[in-house]
């Protein structure tokens, strides 16, 4: 499997560390309540199809990358720096 790091270019997936759903970027407010926090930490979709998850270019530039890919075809549809995505989310919220 190959992942395109937005900084380094296409690299073997062995250079990356995987954590899971990119929903981790959407940290709730401390006062958001049990339900929001439970959802944020523990509830995950397991789609057959397009998914968005977080990979860390650990053996490379140390960038966290949001990878949009298809779990059925294994196609990597898009990669984006997590910090860019986070900024977009914050802008969208305000």
């Amino acid at each position, binding site marked *: 499997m190959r992942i395109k790091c937005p900084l380094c270019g296409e690299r*073997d997936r062995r250079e990356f560390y995987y954590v899971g759903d990119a929903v*981790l970027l959407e940290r709730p407010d401390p006062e958001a309540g*049990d339900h929001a926090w439970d959802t944020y930490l523990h509830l995950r979709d397991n789609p057959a199809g397009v998914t968005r998850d*977080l990979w*860390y270019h650990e053996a490379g530039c140390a960038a*966290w990358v949001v990878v949009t890919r298809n779990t059925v075809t294994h196609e990597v549809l898009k990669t984006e*720096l997590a910090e860019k995505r986070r900024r977009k989310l914050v802008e969208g919220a305000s």
Partner: protein
Amino acid sequence: MRIAGKGLVDHGTPVRFSFDGRQLEGFQGDTLASALLANDVKLVARSFKYHRPRGIMGAGSEESSALVTIGSGATQDPNVRATVQEIYDGLAAHSQNCWPSLNYDLLSVNDLFAPFLGAGFYYKTFMWPKVFWEKLYEPVIRRSAGIGALSGKANAEYYEKAFAFCDLLVIGAGPAGLMAALTAGRAGADVILCDEDSLLGGRLNGETFEVGGMAGSDWAAETVRELESLPNVRVMPRTSVTGAYDQGTYGALERVSHHVAAREGRPLECFWRIVAKRAVLAAGAIERPVAFPNNDRPGIMTASAVRTYLNRYGVAPGQRVTIFANNDDAHRTARDLVDAGVHVAAVIDSRAEAPEGAGYEVIKGAEVCGSEGRKGLEAVSYRRADGSVDKVQTDCLAMSGGWNPTVHLTCHMNGRPNWHGGIHSFVPVPGAIPGLEAVGACNGAFSTHRAFVEGAEAALRALGDLGVKAKKSVVPESEDSPYRIEPLWAVAGKGRAWLDFQNDVTVKDVQGAAQENFRSVEHMKRYTTQGMAPDQGKNSNVAALAVLADATGRGIEETGTTTFRPPFVPVAIAAFGAGGQGTGFAPQRHTTSHAESVRRGAPMIEAGLWYRPSYFPATGERTWRQSCDREVNMVRGTVGVCDVSTLGKIDIQGKDAGQFLDFVYANTFSTLKPGKVRYGLMLREDGFVMDDGTTARIAEDHFVMTTTTAAAGQVMRHLEYVHQCLCPDLDVAMISVTEQWAQFAVAGPKSRDLLNGIVAEEIDNESFPFMGCGPATIGGVAGRLFRISFSGEHAYEIAVPARYGESLFKLLLERAEAMGGGAYGMEALNVLRIEKGFITHAEIHGRVTADDIGMGRLVSAKKDCIGKTMSERPGLSGEEREQLVGLMPVGVVKQITAGAHLFEPGAEPVRSNAQGYVTSVCFSPTLETSLGLAFLRNGRARHGEEITMVDHLRGVTTRCKVCDPVFLDPEGGRVRG
């Protein structure tokens, strides 16, 4: 029988080898199979289940019958296909799966019991009693049914792994592959051309027709020479592409030195991971046998294999050859044999409209329906259309049921091939592997001309996709004969007709599966083991599907195929895992003090990948405890030195560094003054403790964080995550400097005296108070000094750039020893910290909260931090939780053991009564007692109570007193010096 002067082998270079101890001779360029046939050795193997005599069936990597063992002892290599193994001087091959010998195999008694041993026999027979399965049935079945055996000894042979990248990967170097590689190579693209064979050219080397006015094999050789002359083309013979994976990644097995006697330091095999922007699959096709009664005798081969042996190796596999076919292509075999002067007994063609022969008889509309000859073919019988049966004396039958495109790689990413009614076989679905195009025979295009055209066109398309300009290649003149075939899968008649020769699966077995309602192709496969042998059904799958389709009254298309999975050919685990043995599996990380510690006789223990000294034995000490006790007393009494470089060190800088640390640590760091160090506790977002350590503020915008040795990588990842994913706008940057700094703990009442002797700066309580830090110059080298303590003593940690680590370690030891101190290792370090109740990952093991370890108040109420919200959940603090306590023995038994459980005195020691568990233990020479750290339900409120420790594993029961986890100097007087 060798035909003088014929073939592509080097007739001038004889090669001596042995088979089952018999000395034989072949030529350079022979495979073991061709050399055996040249010596008229026809019986080479015994079959898997029935121990039937078997010969050589094919001439390629798909060989289903001729499996042998090469070599002996630790390097013995079983299940080698004789058709792939090239001979070299001294090669020693042995037959396998027979006892006492290939010729006289006692286990061939299985063949007599064949009526009872059909598919499903084991499942139905060896059911009861259940215990007999493991003890009796399975061992006996395994003993009698099987293929080659491993030596059971460690194999020291060397395997390698490699990575490669290219614009175009061409898989297969037959006409289609050579044309594709030539087109792309001439255009300047980076090309890798892989072929399983030692000699590139594919069928061109096994046929007699011309290409571009010269012999096909000459054209292939000339083309390969041109490709090898191009700097942008890598030609890889003896390399099987084994699998197609995501994003253009391919696995390939290169047989580097199986074919030579002297390896000269080369690996046996190399496993390649090739990343290709585009790929052309030119894998060719495999000729399929026909299932007729007793179709497995030595001497019965595929028609194309007979041609290959004749044309490429100059070997006639028989003296009176019969051909049995359902297509025109197999008639080439008869023509080539006649041209070479070999007698053709007859061509038996199942088609009424078969072409006429030239110099041989064609019996049309007839089917071979039986064979004779126990250890070698003697005769075949055939049935004419009118039902009459005749017999023909023959020592070799060349059969052909048509060709199956080698679609395997196109199915590795879930693709299912399409049924092609014109060729009565499966063809690849375009796009099944992104970026890969199948061409030539593996795409169902069976003429040489079509192979050339498709190869050239696919290369041009690939180059176009990549934006490489290319000229259209001129396709050489070659044969373009139509592929005429009428399907023929199985011939009816008395006797077993083999489908899967390797796993001894017959037509009757597949019909039986259908009868027992295993009608799905996947069920049939598992019921009969059809296609599960090392050849993975390459020879047999399509015919077996046809038989199943017939038995279930369905079409073949509707019946479908089983799943083709990687690897395409068997790959040794040693090749897949090349480089992963020994230090390749777990690299060793050494500190700068490693050599000196080893020189001093310290046994090293693993801490992750690091190696750390366990203790430093002094003269006369016989046990680790003696050394450990002495080292603890030394630190408490004078001074000790310990390498702590393995702790993670993260350099954090930026205007917002303080704010960032406030967010990742439970406690506050933005208020820390430069020149000060603070203990920090880090939580996971779910509220549990992740790690702890000290962080020093070097300057207003500069911190150095330490982590535990074990969690260094995890914390680094976590910090980057928090920064990039949660607060990217903070002005902060971080990098691991664990390996850049060598750091040593100098601990004990005389630590300051020692340091004042070597550090340029004056060290006192003013300049370096407890939890102070600052620059320190040692011998002109700029270092850092931290007044921190993991022992509870007046202590420092001194850091220098790693290149000065070894000399500083030696200097510190020299000074310490002059003061009555010395080095201490991990055992003493552990005792020192337990005496002080300091935690490690034995305590913060992922299931404890800040409150559990008595640090609930550390979680600042004034700010948000990672894990704060979730740590406030009900149930994560309070008296229901197991809390950190100290344990001291109070009864006769003095032993406290890690992992033991705690119970109320008198309570039955069962799980439902468990009150907690022990995490760390030691013998304290300072307090002269065993000590334990433990988690105990509501433990903080139970100091002074008695509790029973029970270790069910070691059989230890100890009465203990619950106490504060800080056993020594709870006021902290020592540390402040």
